[in-house]
């Protein structure tokens, strides 16, 4: 077992895959925790899809796909963040329809760019589903620098963002710049998504961005502990998936999503069972069930 793991790290591409996977897992799990708290998973999903035409367009123009990912994800984040906030349920309804349409349009444009690029279908699959196993050392360093910047920025605004997310009205009344923080957070989310997309592809970003944080939210409501749990789950899932993918002919993304979904379901089941037994125990004292 140990020697086979050592054999795994004998390949530079596996070492780079582990380094990149680690960086991406930490950033997406931390950022995702706030995203799930703020109920912005639909927006996060849109950002990840918008990266696809960005990367495809950049390749069509002969630029690097990294540039395309960052330009489109951050650009879309600014647009989503500065768009008028939904105040009522009717507005929320319109907003989700707009996001849905924008998503489909973004994917359609990506598809157009790829087919204009003389139909390199392998390129299409790797843009959508990622290529965990072809990362250069230069890319790892770029990922690390950007991840560090994004995490520091998140650390700086974490407390007010937490306050503003839990109760926007009271936070606004207490003088917290709720709107500016919202824009700042979604731009950071755009950076995290662009970063993750390069490794997992546009379609599977969500697996690292939503599932580990959602699991953490099921386990605990405490912020610091929750973020830590979320990061640990994302890291373990990524590492284990890389190892399995190395020994099987199947893509990493399939294992990342399956493992993180399994963790989420397990957490929900345990929570449900413990809630049930607690409420049965508390049934003796009426009104204590909740």
């Amino acid at each position, binding site marked *: 077992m140990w020697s086979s793991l050592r054999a795994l790290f004998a390949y530079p591409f596996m070492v780079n895959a582990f380094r990149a996977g680690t960086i991406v897992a930490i950033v997406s799990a931390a950022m995702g925790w706030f995203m799930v708290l703020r109920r912005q998973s639909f927006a996060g999903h849109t950002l990840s899809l918008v990266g696809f035409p960005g990367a495809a367009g950049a390749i069509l123009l002969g630029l690097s796909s990294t540039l395309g990912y960052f330009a489109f994800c951050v650009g879309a984040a600014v647009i989503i963040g500065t768009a008028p906030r939904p105040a009522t349920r009717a507005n929320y*309804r319109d907003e989700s*329809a707009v996001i849905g349409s924008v998503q489909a349009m973004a994917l359609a444009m990506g598809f157009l760019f790829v*087919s204009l690029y003389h139909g390199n*279908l392998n390129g299409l699959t790797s843009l959508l589903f990622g290529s965990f196993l072809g990362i250069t050392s230069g890319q790892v360093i770029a990922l690390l620098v950007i991840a560090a910047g994004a995490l520091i920025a998140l650390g700086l605004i974490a407390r007010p963002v937490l306050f503003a997310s839990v109760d926007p009205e009271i936070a606004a009344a207490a003088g917290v710049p709720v709107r500016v923080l919202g824009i700042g957070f979604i731009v950071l989310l755009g950076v995290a998504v662009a970063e993750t997309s390069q490794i997992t592809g546009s379609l599977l970003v969500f697996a690292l961005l939503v599932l580990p944080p*959602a699991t953490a939210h099921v386990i605990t409501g405490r912020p610091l502990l929750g973020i830590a749990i979320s990061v640990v789950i994302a890291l373990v899932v990524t590492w284990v998936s890389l190892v399995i993918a190395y020994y099987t002919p199947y893509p990493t993304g399939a294992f990342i999503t399956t493992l993180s979904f399994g963790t989420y379901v397990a957490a929900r089941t345990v929570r449900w069972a413990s809630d049930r037994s607690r409420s049965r125990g508390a049934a003796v004292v009426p009104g204590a069930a909740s």
Partner: protein
Amino acid sequence: MSSLVPVLASVTSIFSHSFMRDAFLAGTGIGASCGLVGYFVVLRAQVFTGDALSHVAFTGALAALAAGFDLRLGLFGATVAVAIGMGLIARSGRADDVVIGSVFAWMLGLGVLFLSIYTAGSSGANGTAGVSVLFGSIFGLSAGAAQAAALIGACVCLGIVVIARPLLFTSIDEAVAAAAGVPVRVLGIAFLALVGVTAAETTQAVGALLLLGLLAAPAAAAHLLTERPLRGLALSAAFAVMAVWAGLALSYEIPSLPPSFAIVAVATSTYAGAAAWAGKVRARGNRMMLGSDMESGLEIAR
């Protein structure tokens, strides 16, 4: 009169190809069902559900291919089953964000797994299967498949018309509808099943990844233009069918445009046009209301 001749000539040339006739036949059924179902999807704020089902469609289709079945079996089976399942899990038939997000992240991962099993097993001959499920291949539909798509589209439209009234009531005020004896939960689940069928249908035309464009954009445009439900439903269906027709014609005239891109582009432009128009009308309304607004503003300021 003379300018009409080339237009007519190109129309006849479009319909002289059997694959174009099939595409128009299937596209009409798909567009109409998308428009009608989409109207309620937007009204009930279930766009996210439609999105999740699109990913399920991808996985279902590839699972069927990997197992050696007909693609449509997996497509319809998976979307309808998951739609009903989501209706059952979520309280009151409305699935919540994180549950849907989780399901579809996992679904996509499974889809990639099936894709790699399928492409590894079929010696590269069907290497484009993944792409055609993701982005559609309406020009590649057989005559039988096109007729089936049109028929299923008609059934979905009929289904929506049958449940339209109680569904509308439930969507606007669930609590009152439940109090009035409307079976809210059953209705919500039945509606989700219809969304599932529509998602599977639409996947054949514009692909799993783009179906949201046809489901959400025409419906959202209709919601912007009118508050009245019947007119909105009709408008939404008309927009969706027109988007499919215009998209097909565009991509016939400009071969480098994939049909699914053209259809989604037309649908989204329809929405953008409707938003611009609605904005202009609202601005005019605001100007007329400005006097009274300023008075109430002053009152608030005091």
